[in-house]
């Protein structure tokens, strides 16, 4: 018999602030109580957001205990989706799609350009901890191929100039430290 006094839900509560727990609970309520696995994605998203954009073993284990699912089930989800990071990443994660449509429309050039400009390889983070570049699977924006995503904003129909523009915009943003990334898209779209 397992120790009944040990509350499996407690551990996550010590790792996250209350609003975050409430947000996870909000997602749990959307599914029937016997379906325990559907809220894994939502819970991991919340947890990652509160942990500087990456997940740790301890956090994944705590999520498993909180949702009452096997550890491996959480790990499966965390390793499947490219939006979850299992290692520390930069402040801005630049995700470039290199699936078939983007590939045909020059995703390799985009990747090459990013690597040269930031002087890092795919999957690496710059020394200042600002940028990470990685490739991801199709983000359902084939109509605008090639595309990339950074800070939850899609940039489509990329050209060399556009990529340069994105990078300098982020840099300008970092220097100014005033605007939020969300404002960035508004500017680019102009």
């Amino acid at each position: 018999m397992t120790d009944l006094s040990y509350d499996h839900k407690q551990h996550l509560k010590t790792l996250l602030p209350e609003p975050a727990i409430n947000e996870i609970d909000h997602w749990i309520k959307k599914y029937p109580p016997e379906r325990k696995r559907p809220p894994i994605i939502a819970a991991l998203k919340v947890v990652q957001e509160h942990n500087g954009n990456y997940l740790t073993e301890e956090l994944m284990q705590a999520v498993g205990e909180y949702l009452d699912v096997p550890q491996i089930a959480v790990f499966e989800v965390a390793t499947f989706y490219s939006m979850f990071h299992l290692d520390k990443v930069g402040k801005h994660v630049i995700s470039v799609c290199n699936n078939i449509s983007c590939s045909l429309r020059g995703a390799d050039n985009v990747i090459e350009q990013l690597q040269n400009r930031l002087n890092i390889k795919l999957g690496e983070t710059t020394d200042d901890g600002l940028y990470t570049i990685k490739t991801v699977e199709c983000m359902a924006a084939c109509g605008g191929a090639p595309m990339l995503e950074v800070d939850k904003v899609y940039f489509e129909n990329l050209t060399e100039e556009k990529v340069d523009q994105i990078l300098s915009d982020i840099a300008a943003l970092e220097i100014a430290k005033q605007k939020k990334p969300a404002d960035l898209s508004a500017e680019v779209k102009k």
Partner: protein
Amino acid sequence: MGKVHLEIDGKPFEAEVGSMIIEVADLAGIYIPRFCYHKKLSVAANCRMCMVDVSSIPKAVPASATPVAEGMQIQTKTEKAVSARKSVMEFLLINHPLDCPVCDQGGECELQDLSMEYGDDVSRFTEGKRVVKDKNIGPLISTDMTRCIHCTRCVRFGQEVVGIREMGAIGRGEHMEISTYIEESIESEVSGNIIDLCPVGALNAKPSLFKARAWEMRQSPSIAAHDCLGSNVWVHHRRGDIIRVVPRENEAINEVWLSDRDRFSYQALTEGERLLKPRIKRHGEWQEADWQSALSFVASEMKRVIGGSQGKNFGGLIGNSVTTEESYLFQKLLRGMECNNIDFRTRRRDFSGDGRSSVRSGFNFPMEELDHMDATLLIAADLRHEQPLTALRVRKSTGFGNAMAINPFDGEYNFKLAHEIQPDPHFLAQEFARVIVAADKLNPDVLHAEAKEWLNGVESELVHEEIAKKLLHGEKSCIVLGVYVQEHPQAQTINWLAESLASITQSEWGYMTQGCNAAGNKIAGAVPMQSAAGGKSKAGKNAKQMLLEGLQGYFLFNCEPDVESVWSKEALNSLNNASFVVAATPFADGRALDYADVLLPIAGCYETSGTYINVEGTWQSFAAAVKAPEESRPGWKVLRVLANLFELKGFDYESSEQVINELREKFDAAGENKVARKIPPPLMQVNESEVSRKSLGLYQVDSIVRRAKALQQTPKASTHPISVSRVTT
């Protein structure tokens, strides 16, 4: 369920609505290739190898995931079906290494077999193959994950059959890997089954890795010897050496599975320290001897001790996992010498039931029925560690029914419990009695007055009433007593309570027993109160008396009371102080070297022919798979020769069949001996410090398992206070 009519390859068949094409084809003996489909697992349909051509559907469809329909015309060998499979095979082989010559699965590999039929000679794929890092998942299973084709049978086995999901598919697409959570070793007690399930060489048995090729081995049917189910196995051997043990399908007992204990225990025989020649201790020194001088020495010493005390000062103790033949001859030999101190129950504390002769096995209902119980009450039954495969059965029943437990110890369950009570072990019987009181309230017409009076003063609470209700209202229900119950100081009381509760709630009941042949030992008469087949016997001492009183001489037959008895300390003391101890054992280690005067090398399991009688009373005979090494001999032969030295009559057996036939005749002639259980003495608090000790651990149950190397390295091995280091002095 209705029936539909369909045609497969032009032949008409009738099938149940809802069944899949592949099930119908399998029943009809039409083979459809498959990797991910397995009859005991859910349908995944991810390998796409089972493509068939259905007339009404334009594309080829997977037979494992396509339900049958009226008038379906299925072709398994048309070009459409075959070319679909060829394409699937091409994709599977893209990343599969060409290392069949060094792969243990080579020669018995489903992928290898099917690639002969569906694979191309030349690969069109010229790019680099992917390589997956191997995982260390423990001492039992070796991994070569580059060979994995992602059928997910191992994942589904954990999730569905065992109920403890340890493996999963991590990563995505090309990067998908089958793995455990962050390199953990697998803890399950039935993990070895994923070796059989794996259609390729990704998961192989570690203890037999690189020991033999599939085509070099021969297989012999046998019976596993470590729990009271008597799982059916194939012993694979090459030139007289056991290489591995795998399950032999028997739906009524082990289905298609095998516990790790039964699968890997053979290692003790092949790699343990075996006793290869008889040994006699002279002036404190062990000397090897030939059989004749060893047996004459035993005979003269036995005559000395037995003759000097009219049999009172000599005792015979026999192990829990010896064959029925050995057990029968053992008691026949000792009784022939006028010695009635014979017992196998070295783990029993309560002998108050010995007055009533009975040959009842633990279960009087088929084990298979556990699958279909609406309510199952487990009394101190740690099924996962006692009879791992029954835990899988009870788990099946919890899909629709309720499992409930009264267990004084921390049980590990792989199914949900509707109710769980954890009483103090001293009050196990008292707690159980409260359920009967609750049941009596619901159905007061069954229990007779005397029993009601016995229960007077016992109060039930809500939880007891809930348990009683579920047992009573379930269409099928049962009460299962774990091995520990028979070791409890109030075993007879608990047995009586179970029988009474079963009659009130119209449930089945059964008790689990230690070792593989407790029923056989009892029927063979290796007990002091009755001879073979429940026949009469003069009174003799039981195991407790023999071990506690300290006799002058002992005959230990594949029995290590200093380790496996609940009286182990006292046993060691008595054995050390005895003037003559003869031990028949397959092993040349352990404390027998200290206390014994003669060691007789006998065959271990798979090396002797014999019969085990399982807990349901099924007699399962088997032939020896391999010969016992060097001078060691099957136990029944040793006993027969020894009896001849005593000039006892009726020991002219030429085969073990003659022995078992003689017993079987007596057993059939005796008929079923039904004796009502007596009302036990009043409930009292058990006043024994030993009561809190649990039953023997998963990998401590018998002399063979205790010496199986790989099993002893698993995390489960250390869950019991008796460690191997203490066994080997």
